[in-house]
């Protein structure tokens, strides 16, 4: 069955709104996670730390170059994800609509192909 990754994309504005009432956000997120566990659809969920703490490993040159975050020009930053095992794309979207997200945030819904979809070479 296809899996879907719900990718949380926050802006400075939505991150600020989220941090303003972080306790409330943590509580509703916890509740949402429990709901997905009980529905039998959640495989993994993580939230990411402040992008300022991150580093970037850049493979443009011959050897990887490591620079400190943040990422420069980016407007929306990857802030966390939910990995779901659902019956359809529509169901993934329905769950995405229920994510407790601050105004301005976006959620990208991406399909994760199964290992059975990798082409097989006929021996």
């Amino acid at each position: 069955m296809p899996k879907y990754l719900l990718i949380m994309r926050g802006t400075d504005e939505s991150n600020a709104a989220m941090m303003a009432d972080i306790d409330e956000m943590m509580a509703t997120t916890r509740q949402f996670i429990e709901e997905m566990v009980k529905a039998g659809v959640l495989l993994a969920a993580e939230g990411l730390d402040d992008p300022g703490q991150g580093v970037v490993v850049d493979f443009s040159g011959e050897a990887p170059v490591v620079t400190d975050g943040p990422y420069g020009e980016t407007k929306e930053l990857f802030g966390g994800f939910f990995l779901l095992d659902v019956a359809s794309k529509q169901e993934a979207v329905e769950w995405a609509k229920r994510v407790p997200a601050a105004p301005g945030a976006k959620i990208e819904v991406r399909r994760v192909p199964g290992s059975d979809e990798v082409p097989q070479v006929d021996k």
Partner: protein
Amino acid sequence: MGTADVEAVWRIESARIVAALTRFTGDFGLAEDAAQEAVAEALVSWPLASPANPAGWLMATARRRAIDAIRRRAALRDRYALVAADLAADAAVDEGIGPDRIDDDVLALMFVSCHPVLSPEARVALTLRVVGGLSSEEIARAFLVPVPTVQARITRGKKTIAAAGVPFELPQGAERRERLGGVLSVLYVIFTEGSTATSGDRLLRPDVAYEAIRLARTLAALQPDEPEVHGLLALCELTAARFPARTGPDGSPVLLDEQDRRRWDLSAIRRGLAALAKASTRGLGPYGLQAAIAATHASAPSVEATDWDRIVVLYEALGRVAPSPVVELNRAVAVAMASGPAQALAIVDELIALDRLPGSHLVPTVRGELLARLGRRPEARAELELAARLCANQRERSVLLRKAARLS
């Protein structure tokens, strides 16, 4: 919003809505009918105007249909006033339903759908429809039966529940454990239909297996202290982990010894092993033991490097807690790998002498393989041809015939 969107919301909400309505009305059949009416209305009205809160819309509509049905019934019996008062009280309760209550209701719904008064087919159909939120069409497709057959099973099931006066509550004490075993076996039947299709031209139907895994995950979340629930979940995850390697590019079956293990789903194996760890807190039960066998395969780099001695021991334990001729047959296969085909043949011949698996293609399949390994080719060929005649799955049958042909 289109049909697929309505179906998606229903997938998520069906168990909670039917459970809540059954508790309000005390009538499982009525609750299920009302919920289905709400879905039918959603299919008509949502494409024209999407509700702001689809889940709330479904619950409110289903509740209104339930009240309508009770009013019609109450008018007939002249009990209108009484029932209306009850409903008002229920509505008040509904405003303050806590999550624990909903969990218990969903669990009670699983117990009702898998109740022992129901036929095995009705248990499967009701569980998938009511708890899983599948339509009759989807269930019919899953089990390769006509849609009216599924509808008849559901209608009959609801009548049986009403006639037997099955209460909507969680069984307690020893009955709880026993009934939980019934729920687990329904989920396993659904899984098995997906993992080894008993008929038809496809060996695997992963979408059917997925429904069982999803329901098992729900049950594990609602009954976290029951090791066998985790055991079943582990067994399903570890078995499903091999699906990508179990069929060749043309859909023909690939047996364990010929599977490309690099195609096994490592994430599913990891989930299966995690569930198995939870299953083994108080010693493994039948599902946990089967999961442990699957885990032994999952952790082996090849057939040769598999810990067959451990698998033999696990099958012996399984044979003690859940004796069955199929377990004996599997033990024979493991013994053949651990100690050679001659010892295994003795186990199979005893099964045949006692006529423990009459009409099954599995016995001659295994016997044929063992005879081939012992170099008794004409006998082996006859056994494999017999197995092909007995096998209902076309894909498996052609593999058996190919093997038989190679022995001539």
